[in-house]
């Protein structure tokens, strides 16, 4: 990866509004050449061959967007017109990125926007990678780091829920939750320090060790709670990765198509149809799911031909995908007699989210004509795993049950809580909190043995608060002293 803070002199172009439905798309052109490039593709007041004085800053003008002058074959002086659109010139530094910028407002969504982007590229702009505008805005001092992070989350927000969480973070949800951890610690610090600074006075009794312990434990619990919300941050930002896995021909691709609501994956009676991972996003209940169809898992060592090799590679990919899944749907064909066994999955790598598994029976319409209502083959009975969800991709039976089960599982990750608290932890926050938690654990360990002196506890606590302050921005020395003076009546 390139150095994230390396300055690029390129002029970049990309859609600035999310890909998708909306009637209006904004294309942003940003960089030192923005005005010049715009003049090559746009003709309107202040632009192109129009009046000699350049564009008026911050005033949107209607005009004709066309293929670049030098790229098109000019016939009869005619321009290869793309559309009639609005252009907004924003000279730096008063633009989103802080650079010279022109924003084009295109009707007709996707189609026109794509043509506008292409034309700008043809006129000398470079396609902006995702997040580039925000990166430039940050480097040019237009956004705080926290804002940049929240905006980046918003840009990537695949779902309404993620967007709401990012907005809430801009409003400081994390701050409030951190405060709930910080203030009791500050109060404890006040009491410890009060007993140190004024030990000659009568009303500054030492703080009982049991109380110190209790406060530290509560703070640790508070941090644990915040950390428990950390997976939520990622799940909200990136979506929830759901992987379908099972033996060849188990009906993975068919169920995948059902869940996605379209014929995205190839289905065939031949086992081993799916070789590569097929991925599709699904928005549901305000959340973003990313579904992955995979190659069937089976022993391929006996296969020697080319097909075997490709299938082996496919299986390797399946395993990788499974390892990174948030939720694995383990599929097996129903059938009292001929049912497949559940495939064995190697334990996934430790990912931030607790990887969970749901067992799903497929092709229930074929299973034993109702003789056995569970559709389970003896080899599929697993007391610990509980009852699998029975489905049929042919009839659609059980698919809603499956969604319900998936949603129940996701509930357990407390995404809604994270959204309502406005707590979306990024990696930086998470690292700090982990350090603070470990710190608290070590302090508590001190209290297991001989109780450390107040001066030691106070010192450690102050440095802990300073670390929390690195997230919250609060500096506590003066507040602590203030608390001491408020609480303890002290002479000189």
């Amino acid at each position: 990866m390139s150095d994230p803070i390396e300055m690029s002199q390129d002029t970049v172009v990309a859609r600035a509004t999310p890909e998708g439905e909306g009637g209006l798309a904004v294309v942003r052109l940003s960089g030192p050449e923005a005005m010049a490039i715009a003049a090559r593709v746009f003709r309107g007041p202040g632009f192109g061959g129009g009046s000699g004085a350049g564009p008026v800053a911050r005033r949107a003008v209607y005009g004709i967007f066309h293929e670049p002058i030098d790229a098109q074959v000019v016939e009869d002086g005619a321009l290869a017109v793309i559309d009639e659109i609005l252009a907004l010139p924003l000279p730096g530094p008063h633009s989103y990125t802080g650079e010279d910028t022109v924003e084009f407002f295109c009707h007709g969504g996707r189609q026109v926007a794509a043509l506008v982007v292409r034309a700008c590229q043809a006129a000398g702009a470079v396609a902006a990678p995702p997040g580039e505008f925000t990166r430039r805005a940050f480097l040019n001092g237009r956004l705080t780091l926290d804002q940049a992070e929240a905006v980046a989350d918003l840009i990537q927000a695949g779902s309404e829920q993620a967007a709401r969480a990012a907005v809430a973070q801009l409003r400081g949800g994390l701050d409030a939750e951190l405060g709930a951890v910080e203030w009791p610690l500050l109060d404890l610090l006040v009491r410890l320090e009060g007993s140190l600074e004024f030990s000659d006075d009568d009303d500054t009794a030492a703080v009982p060790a049991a109380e110190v312990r209790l406060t530290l434990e509560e703070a640790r619990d508070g941090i644990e709670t915040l950390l428990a919300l950390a997976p939520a941050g990622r799940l909200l930002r990136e979506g929830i990765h759901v992987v379908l896995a099972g033996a060849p021909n188990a009906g993975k691709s068919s169920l995948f198509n059902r869940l996605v609501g379209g014929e995205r994956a190839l289905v065939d009676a031949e086992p081993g149809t799916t070789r590569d991972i097929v991925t599709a996003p699904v928005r549901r209940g305000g959340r973003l799911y990313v579904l992955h169809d995979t190659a069937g898992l089976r022993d391929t060592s006996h296969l020697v031909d080319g097909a075997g090799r490709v299938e082996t590679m496919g299986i390797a990919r399946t395993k990788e995908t499974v390892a990174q899944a948030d939720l694995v749907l383990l599929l097996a064909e129903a059938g009292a007699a001929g049912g497949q066994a559940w495939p064995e999955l190697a334990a996934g790598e430790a990912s931030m989210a607790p990887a969970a598994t749901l067992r799903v029976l497929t092709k229930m319409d074929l299973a034993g004509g109702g003789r056995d209502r569970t559709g389970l083959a003896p080899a599929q009975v697993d007391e610990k795993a509980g009852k699998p969800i029975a489905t049929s991709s042919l009839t659609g039976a059980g698919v809603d049950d499956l969604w319900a089960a998936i949603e129940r599982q996701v509930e357990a990750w407390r995404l809604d809580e994270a959204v309502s608290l406005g707590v979306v932890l990024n990696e930086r926050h998470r690292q700090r909190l982990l350090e603070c938690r470990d710190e608290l654990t070590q302090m508590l360990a001190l209290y297991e043995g001989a109780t450390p002196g107040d001066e030691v506890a106070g010192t450690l606590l102050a440095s802990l608060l300073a670390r929390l302050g690195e997230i919250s921005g609060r500096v506590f020395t003066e507040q602590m002293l203030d608390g001491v003076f408020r609480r303890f009546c002290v002479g000189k």
Partner: protein
Amino acid sequence: MVGGGHAGIEAALAAARLGARCVLVTHAISEIGRMPCNPAIGGLGKGHLVREIDVLGGEMGLAIDATGIQFRMLNTKKGPAVQSPRAQADKHAYQRRMGEVVLAQAGLEVIEGDVVDILAMPMDAASATCAGASDGASDGALTGEAAPRTKPAWRVRGVRLADGREIAGARVILSSGTFMRGLMHVGARQTIGGREGAVSAEGLSESLRRLGFTLRRLKTGTPPRLARDSIDFTLLQPQPGDVDPQPFSLRTEVFAPRQVDCHQVWTNATTHALIRANLDRSPLYGGTIEGQGPRYCPSIEDKVVRFADKERHLLFLEPEGRDDNEIYVNGLSTSLPADVQEAMVRSLPGLEAARLLRYGYAVEYDSVPSWQIHDTLETKPVAGLYLAGQVLGTSGYEEAAAQGLVAGVNAVRELGGHSPMPLSRGQSYLGVLVDDLVTKDITEPYRMFTSRAEHRLHLRCDNTEERLGPLALEFGLLDARGRRVLEARARYVDGLRALLAGVTVRPPGGGPAVVAAQYLRFPEVNLEGALAAGLAADPGAEERLHALRGALAEAAPAPHVRAGAEAQVENGLKYGGYIAKQARLLAQRDDLDLRALPDDLDYKSMSALSFEAREKLTRIRPATLGQAGRIDGVRAGDLAVLTVFLRKRRIVRRQGGGDGGDI
């Protein structure tokens, strides 16, 4: 040097001892070293400062050792890091001694007079240009404020006295204490003066304003003084000094103070009722006093109002001298009218017939908010002008003396083209003090507390010599005797540590054999016990210890030197684990202290910074990223922005671009 208070004394002595030719101008020679308030030196945090001043060659420790009448180690029930010495002074003896030392100092001339003007010449136009002034792209959020001026506009050239005399000086240190436009209040009665019986400094405030300084009004107060012979001490609880008093100074050789008692007395319902009934006559509550007073040293009326549910407050009766008839009532600072003060005092047991020799009063004065100085204590607007002491918004003799020493040393070093004193928060309370001064927005008189030091476990009284000794030697701050004692002590400490690390002992309670240094970390073991176990285990150890002690006694015969060194070794080992842990935790932040922030950054135009950060950074202009991070309201995100900005600026510079200042 302007002002012969505690700051001015240390500044003048340090500068003269470093070989500079100095003039101390002060209102009255007889007033040099006067203690206008509490007749005591030291206390929590403050005692640490006195020890540091002492190791750096200052006078305060020696003076109190010679003139103290009661010595106590505070916080003995707590850990060694927060123990601090405090002593009652015979304030007249202290003042006399300081006056003698100052007058006897070679290279230091003392002149009586009132300084009314700081003389300065404009810096040449080119070097005085304002960085950032060319910036037209700031977002306007802070318009109306002056552009950051990073180059001083003036260079100091001396001072002018009220009688018109001018005294030339390449460097000027101003330590005028509470005297600038000093105004005293007793009830509704107002008197002009910096403290009781003294004049005020009326001209200086205006002079400083003309040079571009912002001033701020602060307030402090002092309690009434009683006649000793009018008090019935039989009704009061005595508070004696320590049985085994310890001196402050490493250099004190003979120390056998004759100690006197202080006494405790509690206020009662009658006292409180009197105060409540007369609150409207207090200038503090009547709104006459505009200056901000210290929270930690509230007046008695403040205490009664703010802690309404407390039925009594503890007061200490402290003699102002061994044979002095004046008694200081610690805890009864007030500016209520004289008749209320009298009634208040007489409501106390044993004080029914007490006579008030002097009334308590509050004093308001102009101070110079300390964001206007560098960490050398040189001012930002006027090159060559240094500030030290209460004028910078601190309070307390020790805080003042500490700054005086730093200013004196730095002024001379700078004059000679040498680097200033390297002070850091991790090495000394002096470092904490100076860093706080240049970093914090101080709105009340600043007092030192041990909790201000994040390296508190390391910054102990007992290891001051180890922390600051090398600096004292390198800068030549100690005389021959001081150097000899310091070096002998360091050798003894090293020897003792080597001895403890070199013998293996078998803990009496069983368990595996450990080196004596490790054994000393057991909670129930002290140095004596560890040494005894070591000597028992290794026959050669006894001889080595004997030799070490012999060498120390020869160079530094005073027993307190050995006691201090041994305390250092013991406490250092006992705290060792915590200190190492703290050091690790703080190392990361200290790294940031090495990353300088250029003088000419225009924070106002960095709209990526939070509004609060922009505002504070613009005013305080931190020297390093670390200091920026300690400013309240500057967040990790803001630091990240600054880091990125610095890197970007480097890259742009490397590429030969503009100055990158227009982020």
